[in-house]
């Protein structure tokens, strides 16, 4: 593979989303080409990024553009952590674009501009993450701040909020520039690798202690941490789909990503690490308490986002940068599902965000209610869901440090976030209906086919525990580590556990087929006006899916159980099968659909616990 191949691979993920804009402008008269050029460009980018992780066995660097005798270059570094983060950004962006296309049927020019901005946003994010010198990084974050301001400004009401967010971003940029001046004046270089080598001999360059503080304040500002956390709540004025992107995978997490990327700046400076912990802890406590008193659904989720980012800052302050990135990835998946599910609720309620004017959604919109429940479980770190291993890793650091204050903060924040989410769902979904009569006539359940992208994200949020567990095990998310060891280990792991992985994939396919059959049956029912068999009712389909969730969780733990040869897998299998059979029996006894679902969930959990107990797991 020559250098041209690497150049193509390096440039494509960043340039494809931008190229799609030109394509969409040329074919703007065709709705199909206009909408799907955005989505397919992102899909192509993410495909290349995934192939970078699996095909190439070494970190590679692509020098895209440079001028002779001038120290200016645009170059991208495809390390494992950078590529993984870019993949996550792309996945969430694809889902948001697709959901936006499905829900918002507005075909005006404004919609085209809005989608183009989203694509540029993803491109700039990838550029900033993959950059290997300060110069490129600066360009990336400036474009990010510019596009975020434009995206928030699409909402006509958000005029003061736009300016406030811009001022915060500019303050952060000024601090970044000041830190850059100091670094370049001291070291005469912009390359992250050379800066890292210099920071390893910090005693030779005492002036390099100054940029650390400036960069930390800049990161606190970007990450909406105390005392700069107010802008995050203001950004909820934006369109709900923009909010999802801003709150989950991009701007908010960028502080964490930067700290992890430049961990060498903060590593030998305990004062800065203490500031990180104090600021993160203060933000987490303040925000999670304030989320208990808000009545705006978007603000409640924004507060919990700031609290989660605070926990990531605590992990970074304790020197566990890889765990903070793991928390970021889990947060991106789980929170984007939660936000998306509420985006459907808010769209169905004609942009009503006050939870006191919601209620009774479990009867009006059962499809959305199911997704809200699953996203709730994945957000709070329920066992076998995506955030479970991230939260357990965070707790394991606390046990290592034995710091009572930090332990109290983390436990307090986690418990209160649970209370906050239960309050939100209790009032907005299961509470007494307080929806206005005018809105009630227009409300409708969003069809399953419109939620297919979200369902993909839901599946990731459920089975993502399998991926996150592997990330915990091999410590892949540490910037600067070689990717070779990880990839070999991962491929060996895949081959060893091929059967379990195949089982999960078959589970996905079967669940999807059941969904499709149910859709076809419903459509046929409507067309011919004849009542078909009621076997494939909606709630039973949900029950089937829950069964597959349990099945895949079993597969995950079967994979874990293989490492310990002493434990008997057979007992676990027998117990699992018996409990699943019992669950099927219980669903047949109960007539109510809710009871059937409850039985399936309960039996699935019991089955997995029994399997853990008998087939073996290192955590039990």
């Amino acid at each position, binding site marked *: 593979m020559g250098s041209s191949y690497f150049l193509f691979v390096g440039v494509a993920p960043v340039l494809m989303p931008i190229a799609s804009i030109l394509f969409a402008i040329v074919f703007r008269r065709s709705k199909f080409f206009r909408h799907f050029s955005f989505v397919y460009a992102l899909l192509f980018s993410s495909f290349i990024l995934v192939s970078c992780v699996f095909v190439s066995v070494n970190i590679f660097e692509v020098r895209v553009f440079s001028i002779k005798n001038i120290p200016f270059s645009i170059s991208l570094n495809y390390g494992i952590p950078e590529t993984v983060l870019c993949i996550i950004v792309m996945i969430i962006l694809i889902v948001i674009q697709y959901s936006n296309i499905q829900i918002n049927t507005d075909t005006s020019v404004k919609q085209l501009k809005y989608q183009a901005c989203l694509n540029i946003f993803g491109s700039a994010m990838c550029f900033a993450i993959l950059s290997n010198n300060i110069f490129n990084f600066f*360009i990336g974050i*400036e474009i990010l701040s510019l596009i975020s301001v434009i995206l928030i400004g699409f909402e006509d009401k958000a005029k003061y909020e736009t300016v406030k967010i811009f001022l915060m971003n500019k303050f952060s940029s000024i601090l970044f520039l000041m830190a850059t001046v100091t670094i*370049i*004046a001291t070291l*005469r270089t912009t390359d992250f690798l050379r800066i890292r080598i210099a920071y390893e001999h910090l005693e030779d360059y005492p002036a390099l202690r100054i940029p650390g503080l400036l960069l930390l304040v800049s990161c606190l500002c970007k990450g909406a941490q105390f005392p700069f956390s107010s802008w995050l709540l203001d950004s909820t004025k934006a369109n709900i789909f923009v909010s999802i992107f801003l709150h989950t995978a991009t701007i908010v997490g960028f502080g964490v990503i930067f700290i992890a990327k430049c961990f060498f700046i903060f590593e030998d400076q305990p004062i800065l690490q203490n500031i990180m912990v104090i600021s993160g802890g203060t933000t987490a406590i303040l925000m999670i308490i304030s989320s208990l008193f808000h009545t705006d659904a978007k603000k409640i989720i924004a507060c919990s986002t700031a609290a989660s980012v605070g926990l990531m800052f605590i992990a970074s302050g304790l020197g566990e940068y890889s765990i903070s990135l793991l928390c970021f990835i889990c947060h991106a998946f789980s929170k984007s599902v939660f936000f998306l599910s509420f985006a459907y609720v808010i769209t169905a309620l004609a942009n009503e965000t006050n939870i006191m004017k919601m209620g009774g959604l479990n009867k009006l919109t059962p499809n959305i209610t199911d997704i809200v429940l699953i996203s709730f479980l994945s957000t709070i770190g329920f066992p076998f869901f995506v955030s479970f291993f991230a939260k357990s890793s965070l707790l394991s650091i606390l046990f290592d440090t034995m710091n009572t204050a930090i332990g109290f903060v983390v436990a307090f924040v986690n418990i209160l976030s649970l209370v906050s989410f239960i309050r939100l769902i209790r009032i907005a979904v299961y509470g007494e209906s307080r929806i206005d009569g005018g809105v009630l006539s227009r409300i409708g359940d969003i069809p399953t086919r419109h939620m297919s992208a979200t369902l993909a994200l839901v599946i990731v949020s459920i089975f993502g525990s399998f991926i996150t567990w592997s990330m915990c095990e091999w410590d892949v998310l540490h910037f600067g580590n070689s990717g070779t060891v990880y990839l070999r280990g991962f491929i060996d792991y895949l081959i060893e556990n091929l059967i379990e992985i195949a089982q999960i994939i078959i589970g996905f396919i079967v669940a999807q087929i059941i969904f499709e059959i149910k859709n076809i049956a419903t459509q046929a029912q409507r067309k011919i006006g004849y009542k078909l068999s009621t076997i494939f009712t909606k709630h039973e389909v949900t029950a089937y899916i829950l069964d597959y969730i349990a099945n895949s969780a079993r597969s995950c733990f079967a994979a874990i159980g293989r490492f310990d040869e002493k434990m008997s897998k057979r007992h676990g299998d027998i117990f699992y099968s018996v409990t699943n059979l019992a669950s099927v029996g219980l669903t047949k006894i109960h007539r109510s659909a809710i009871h059937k679902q409850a039985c399936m969930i309960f039996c699935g959990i019991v089955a997995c616990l029994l399997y853990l107990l008998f087939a073996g797991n290192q955590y039990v």
Partner: protein
Amino acid sequence: MYVLQFRNTVVTVYIDNFLIFTAFLFLIGLGGVVLNRSNLIKTFMSIEIMILATVINFAYMSYIDKSKIGHIFSIVAITVSCLVFAMVFAVYTKNNNRGDLLDDDGE
């Protein structure tokens, strides 16, 4: 030349007139942001002065080292910041339907 000592660390700082000038410029910008609470244009101009004060350091550093890195960084930083300012101002103007676009309190 000034020598600063913090615990066991000794930092030697070379301060000449140019750095004093940029620091002064930065303080002017900071003062503008802090003191002005009503006019958006004044706030933007103050922030731009702060950015320029920072960017001049790049050019000065390049002049001393006879390198080009500072020049290029300063040109890019100025261009990007101008672009961002123009965009933000455009968005604010679009969303503000009042006649007095610039004064928030309607002065």
